[in-house]
């Protein structure tokens, strides 16, 4: 990541000077990063969320004063856009976990995806930031524009939903 980070800083500076070839290379670096955040939150709408994220990133690139802050800035935009896109397409169905298969099911990965799909985008975003990206509650709250207490309660509810599904 540090090589990517150093390279990204150079590319941002070149892009801000007007070099669109550097913008192409920066896009190559940012696509997988945005995808890692957007896809588990937006699920089937992941490509839309990644596109919206990168449109917002490139539109705002010239205003980014500190290129070293690039990845944190992109992460915040990706969280926001992924939740927004997932909400927009009405995938925010209330969790109904009663029909989920139990822990012993051989299709465990599919089960996890299925469980995630039944959570709201907001719950998926909290799970991604805390349990996949490894952020603490304060950082996750800052990224999602929420109070720490809200993140804690959402995380509790999301994990509780998983627990019930596996033990049913």
């Amino acid at each position, binding site marked *: 990541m540090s090589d990517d980070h150093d390279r990204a800083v150079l590319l941002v500076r070149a892009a801000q000077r007007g070099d669109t070839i550097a913008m192409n290379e920066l896009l190559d670096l940012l696509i*997988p990063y945005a*995808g890692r955040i957007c896809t588990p939150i937006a699920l089937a709408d992941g490509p839309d969320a990644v596109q919206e994220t990168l449109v917002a990133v490139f539109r705002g690139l010239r205003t980014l004063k500190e290129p070293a802050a690039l990845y944190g800035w992109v992460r915040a935009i990706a969280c926001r856009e992924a939740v927004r896109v997932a909400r927009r397409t009405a995938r925010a169905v209330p969790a109904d976990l009663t029909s989920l298969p139990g822990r012993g099911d051989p299709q465990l990965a599919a089960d996890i995806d299925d469980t995630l799909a039944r959570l709201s985008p907001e719950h998926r975003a909290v799970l991604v930031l805390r349990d996949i990206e490894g952020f603490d509650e304060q950082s996750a709250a800052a990224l999602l524009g929420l109070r720490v207490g809200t993140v804690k309660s959402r995380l509790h509810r999301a994990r509780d939903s998983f627990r019930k599904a596996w033990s049913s």
Partner: protein
Amino acid sequence: MTDNHPAPGSAARPDAAGLDPVRRLHALAAGVRGARVTTREIAAPYDTIAPLLADLDGELARLVPDMRGLRLTRADGDRIEAVAVGRLGLRARFDGIRRPGWVWLQSRFLLIGMAATPSATAPDHTLVAFTGGVRVPGHAALLPVAVGRAGRRVLGRLEERVAG
């Protein structure tokens, strides 16, 4: 809001995050002030369209208005250099990136970006996108002159080319 479109059926062309070349073009054009992205679904398979975009020495110069010829001078992986000759005989050196379904060329005064991906809705159709125009020298910006019309002309010529 941007012009989103569904990912195509082919899993080979979008990258792991699901960004096919047309989606990439929308993202990149957002970083170029004054740029417009024109898209058109063309009734020809991707495997017919993509080689036309890649053919800098032949087809591409015929598509772009005011360009009399374009010659590839260097290719190193996906990085390319080319020299273009305008209708008035002026020459311009381009740096660029060429990949399957993707060509992006910048000179001091011009920017050309084209992308193609299989249609998500119609078999054997291809979604093609264009952005470009006269560049503000040294900036990621285009002069706001006829950028939409240029896109329509390029994609119209491409449509005529594959129909003929």
